[in-house]
């Protein structure tokens, strides 16, 4: 019996909710037996060397390995355990590899060239979406871009009679989802108004709705509503104007597809009958959707979670007997890290894990290849010598210690930190010297800021005195060594987790573009 068969969804759920190691301190015998069992499981692991009917590619944007580890611990601690022994759902995947994320021209990449590597099999240059490295940045000429465009796995799926969908917590026109269906040399050309004057390359939102291979895109769920609305139409939730100058209302254009629906709030989303809907466009915010940590409390009209969207997408796509390709992005892990706020990065990762669980529950490893990976990492670190079970967001406190550990200035410090970013403790033009907050102090804002977005700093004088109450607050920005307006991506490898047919082809340290080739092999597209 294969590992996957043994590790049924029920088992996974049980482990997640009431893991043995969480329930009691394991004895030496428990450790030994658990270790031995892992080897037995590995010996029994039988690859599914068959063709995949479906492929689901999960991308945690910016979900580096330190993010996974910290999220695993946070998740375990939020369930009452010590945390370290916990596993996120996708960590149960039997096959694992490391992915080298550099692009043709970037040692540390942005999200634009990494996703084309994953969905076309070819690395390209920064800011480009599914065009090769020989097209100049912001190339305006559609025929030039067309010459250099790279066919994506989603397009191949449609050409082969499969259904296709994309789900994201970012704008559905943002780099990661866009790379699956759009071809452009500027990732920021999301609406026609974003393009350079005279550009004939279609904007990304138009490319999504005008995508016409075998009936077009089947499911697109995420944010970015204003990129689909003309500037003569106001947003139904907030009243802001649409961004399109060409007069097109792409949400109504979408409805020209057969059995199509467009929704923008949770009530309408919940009312969608997957059996009666073949093409679903859901745009739940003018730009990116809410962070999971803020979604329920703050969304005006209500919006579905990443798990809700993933579930609905699968229910619609699975009607196709030929199978489907689905890309799901946890897009705001990256945004939280850029803001220097570990809490939101970890809770976003928790939600991605829940979405993977939903996908595992709705599919069979016999016919569905599920891949969970990241496009790049962040400069996010887990350090010090905290004792087992120490709150992952808290101050480092060593084994047996009654108080937090102190640095050489006599000051406590946190386990989680950033190498650079907005948590630098010198005074900024936006916040006073000392610890920084994701939120402006209540009432102290005037002209608005997204988190803490400084444009200048003065050098820090030593370090602030931290307390557990302060650093475990959801809005605390972990200390950063190098002061920057925005925390940066990290250049180290990221993980690839895989279940299902051909998942065993992921092994060792691989180039990021190999992900496409495994999917292509699994779906039988490889020549």
């Amino acid at each position, binding site marked *: 019996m294969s590992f996957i068969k043994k590790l049924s969804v029920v088992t996974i759920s049980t482990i997640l909710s009431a893991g043995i190691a969480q329930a009691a301190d394991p004895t030496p015998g428990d450790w030994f037996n658990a270790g031995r069992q892992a080897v037995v499981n590995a010996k029994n692991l039988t690859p599914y060397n068959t063709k995949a009917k479906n492929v689901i590619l999960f991308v945690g944007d910016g979900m580096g390995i330190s993010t996974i580890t910290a999220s695993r611990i946070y998740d375990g601690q939020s369930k009452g355990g010590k945390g370290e022994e916990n596993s996120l759902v996708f960590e149960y995947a039997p096959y694992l590899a490391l992915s080298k994320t550099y692009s043709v021209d970037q040692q540390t990449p942005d999200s634009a060239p990494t996703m084309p590597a994953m969905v076309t099999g070819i690395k390209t240059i920064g800011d480009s979406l599914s065009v090769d490295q020989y097209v100049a940045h912001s190339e305006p000429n559609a025929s030039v871009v067309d010459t250099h465009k790279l066919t994506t796995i989603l397009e191949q799926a449609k050409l082969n009679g499969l259904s296709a969908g994309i789900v994201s917590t970012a704008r559905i026109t943002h780099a990661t989802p866009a790379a699956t269906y759009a071809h452009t040399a500027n990732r920021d050309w999301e609406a026609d108004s974003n393009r350079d004057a005279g550009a004939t390359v279609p904007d990304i939102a138009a490319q999504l709705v005008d995508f016409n291979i075998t009936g077009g895109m089947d499911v697109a769920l995420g944010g970015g509503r204003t990129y689909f609305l003309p500037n003569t139409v106001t947003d139904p939730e907030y009243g802001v104007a649409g961004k399109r100058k060409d007069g097109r209302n792409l949400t109504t254009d979408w409805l020209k597809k057969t059995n199509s629906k467009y929704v923008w709030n949770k009530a309408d989303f919940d009312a969608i009958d997957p059996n009666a809907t073949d093409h679903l466009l859901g745009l739940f915010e003018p730009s990116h959707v809410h962070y999971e940590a803020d979604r329920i409390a703050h969304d005006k009209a209500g919006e579905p979670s990443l798990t809700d969207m993933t579930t609905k997408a699968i229910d619609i796509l699975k009607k196709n007997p030929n199978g489907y390709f689905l890309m799901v992005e946890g897009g705001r892990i990256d945004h939280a890290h850029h803001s220097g706020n570990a809490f939101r990065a970890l809770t976003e990762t928790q939600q991605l894990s829940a979405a993977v669980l939903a996908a595992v529950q709705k599919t069979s490893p016999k016919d569905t290849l599920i891949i969970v990976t990241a496009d790049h990492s962040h400069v996010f670190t887990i350090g010090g010598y905290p004792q087992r079970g120490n709150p992952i967001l808290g101050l480092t406190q060593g084994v047996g210690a009654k108080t937090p550990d102190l640095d050489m200035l006599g000051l406590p410090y946190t386990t989680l930190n950033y190498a650079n970013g907005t948590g630098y403790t010198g005074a900024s033009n936006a916040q006073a010297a000392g610890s920084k907050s994701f939120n402006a102090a209540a009432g102290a804002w*005037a002209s608005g800021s997204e988190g803490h977005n400084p444009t200048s700093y003065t050098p820090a004088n030593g370090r602030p005195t931290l307390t557990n109450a302060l650093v475990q607050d959801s809005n605390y920005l972990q200390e950063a060594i190098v002061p920057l307006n925005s925390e940066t991506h990290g250049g180290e490898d990221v993980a690839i987790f895989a279940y299902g047919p051909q998942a065993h082809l992921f092994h060792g340290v691989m180039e990021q573009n190999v992900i496409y080739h495994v999917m292509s092999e699994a779906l039988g597209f490889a020549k």
Partner: protein
Amino acid sequence: MKITNFFKLLFSLVIFGFSVPSYSDNDNQQSTEVACRYETKVTPHNKSKKPSVNAWYFWRSSHMIQTQDTNGDRGEIWLRTNNDSVQYRKLYISDKTAVEYMPADMPTNNMDFNWDKLSNMLSQSELDSMKLVKKTHAMNRNAQVYKGKIGAQSIEVTWLMEEKLPASIIKKDKIETIELHLVEIEPLSVATQKPLAIEEISNYRHIDATDFGDMEHDPFVEKIMAENGDHHHH
């Protein structure tokens, strides 16, 4: 001092120690449409430091507040939408670029734009928390002088009653004196210096502030991050 910094200063000045006004403070009282020019002066009490002066425009209509440095390069705009949301954008005029702060991110960041406070700079409840000292005239208009203290800071406001705007705000503490003075005021319809038209702003390039972290190679983003001299090109 940029407008942004000025407003932060101004609002922190008027907020600390005052109750947060409710949205309905002046809800039923339509503010007049005006065009104003203000000057701010920050005078450090340490005489080795020089005073700084900044001039800026303030325009108010029923659904729009707009500010702009008098050199015309930077501004801000708040638009009240038809469902009482507030859309806020920073304007980089020479770059023809607007940086947007999206509604979804405002509650997360404890941003709760109060139209009353935005359009009048001070709310009635804030004025009421100070002592009315005398009635006077300023800019040939009826005015009231209020005084109060915020901790160790003293504050004096000369308030234009009809226009519901400050003619002056003077704040003093041990470190510096900050003065805001209204220099010109006229009806918006006849103003010589007009705000940017909404249509013109709609033609600007728009960037969601959340996306800055993914736009480090964008020339505009590089420029505004570097402009205060703390970003070193490499």
